[in-house]
């Protein structure tokens, strides 16, 4: 089975300047595979090239070089568009249509019969949490409601692959929770979800794999669990039978000490300190070891490190 999404050396330059234009590279040789049924998080700071990538996949932009395939066929192919859904960043729809009318209109573009259109529209609007607002003109809806309508229209053809550009943007915590559970439901149905975000907690909650984009280049890509398991930042040791006074001699070897219960402490120490020697010394001071856990960087720390490294590499440092 071909990957659901595949890009090969996908590159996009924009002409900048008014009179003597020069190219500015927005996306640099992006090569990426997303397997069918996967939830893939496309992460990066603002201006990294996430939206440019999504627009190239939707053929709203034409690549300078390279190619993009969706479901084994060139992106932009009409047969591909029948099988995908797309939520643009900060979507905006027709002022004078209602959510119901918009969805019915979009469903009709897929050749959906009238009777089925009604039922599908109602079901999707229920699923994204649009109630009586569905009969209001779209210009009267809040940003969060529009985002939900945007998500519903992306699913109107029961797509095999869904592209979501910053799907949590403009949503309150309840809305974000709803969208997260919707994405997980899509995954359970076997739908491939490709979503861009700069909110890392969303990626951590939803994605099997992530790609990190910085200044148009893919600086990291892989399973979240593997990415974060690779480097041990330090260790967390839980001990009992110690007091603040008996721990004081060890302060220089620890990065932090926290009391978690009577006589029980959580001690953090750097990866340069050998756990065996420290445990032996603590034991001779009367400590009993409860647990020892390696501390991995959070996605945020990993992200900051990768983005910083990507920027430095581009500057030739």
């Amino acid at each position, binding site marked *: 089975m071909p990957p659901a999404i595949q890009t090969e050396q996908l590159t996009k330059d*924009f002409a900048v300047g008014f009179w003597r234009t020069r190219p500015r590279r927005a996306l640099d040789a992006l090569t990426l595979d997303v397997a069918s049924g996967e939830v893939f998080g496309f992460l990066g700071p603002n201006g990294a090239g996430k939206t440019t990538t999504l627009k190239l996949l939707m053929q709203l932009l034409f690549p300078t070089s390279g190619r993009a395939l969706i479901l084994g066929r060139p992106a932009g192919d009409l047969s591909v568009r029948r099988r995908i859904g797309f939520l643009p960043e900060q979507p905006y729809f027709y002022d*004078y249509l209602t959510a119901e009318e918009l969805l019915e209109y979009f469903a009709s*573009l897929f*050749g959906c019969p009238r009777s089925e259109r009604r039922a599908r529209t109602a079901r999707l609007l229920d699923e994204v949490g649009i109630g009586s607002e569905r009969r209001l003109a779209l210009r009267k809806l809040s940003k969060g409601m529009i985002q939900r309508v945007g998500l519903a229209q992306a699913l109107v053809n029961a797509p095999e692959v869904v*592209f979501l550009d910053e799907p949590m943007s403009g949503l309150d915590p309840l809305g974000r929770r709803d969208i997260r559970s919707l994405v997980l439901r899509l995954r359970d149905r076997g739908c491939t979800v490709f979503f861009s975000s700069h909110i890392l907690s969303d990626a951590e909650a939803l994605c099997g794999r992530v790609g990190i984009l910085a200044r148009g280049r893919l600086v990291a890509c892989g399973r979240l669990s593997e990415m974060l398991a690779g480097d041990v930042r330090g260790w967390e040791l839980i001990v009992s039978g110690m007091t603040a006074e008996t721990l004081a001699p060890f302060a220089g070897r620890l990065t932090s000490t926290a009391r978690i219960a009577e006589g029980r402490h959580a001690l953090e120490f750097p990866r340069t300190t050998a756990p065996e020697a420290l445990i032996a010394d603590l034991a001779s001071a009367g400590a009993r070891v409860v647990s020892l856990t390696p501390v991995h960087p959070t996605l945020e720390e990993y992200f900051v490190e990768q983005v910083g490294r990507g920027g430095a590499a581009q500057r030739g440092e």
Partner: protein
Amino acid sequence: MSGRIIGLVAGAVFRESVRDRVLYNLVAFALLLIGASLLLAQLTAGQDVKIVKDLGLSAMSVFGLFIAIFIGIGLVSKEVERRTIYSLLAKPVRRSELVAGKYAGLVLTVLVNLAVMGAMVYVVLAWLSWGQPAEVGRSWDAPATDPRLLVAMFLVFVQLTLVIAIALFFSTFASPLLAAAFTAALFIAGHFTADLQHLGSVVKSPAVALMSKGLYHVLPDFALFDVKAAVVHGQPIAPNRVALAVGYVVLYSGGLLGLAVLIFSRRDFK
């Protein structure tokens, strides 16, 4: 190109336009103007039917023009500016189908509006002629509810389909403001193409003569559609004049829409 998709896009344009209050205001204003013509007719004995015909046809032309330009210039550029096009083009819709659908939608909108305005003109004329003595009727150049008015109204419609094609063409690459300026400029210049042809024959400079000749051939000839004076005075309109106008618009609009599709199909939406 799929006729079904074009029809669906056209239907959405029609619905959006009809719900847009600007459109209602224009129609209301047109109706007001016809009302004003009635008032004017009270002051000019014997000439009322002629004035109503003249004013009615002019109002149809002017308000139809406003609708064609002000909605036409935003047909594509507004979709791009507001980013509604992102969702639409992710659906199985070719860019050419989008352009054709937008055009068809506005043509339908203008047609419905002209039909309403035309019906109003006939109602007013019928009301004016109702109960008039036979000798008054005989003094008119043509019957009050002259069916030839339909020919003039049809040519107003044909002219407006060309204006829509021009506005849509500019809308595919220019902002609404620029597209409005370009469309209005072409519309005005298009009424003076005969003068351009004449200029080419009287100037001494061959360069200016060549330029005026070139412009004469490139600019749309809007004088072709103006049969108002003839119809108001009850003169016949030759069928080949109507056929020529229709043929001209089919070719000119077809060319413009072809160019619009060409530009729009290669455009990046940043």
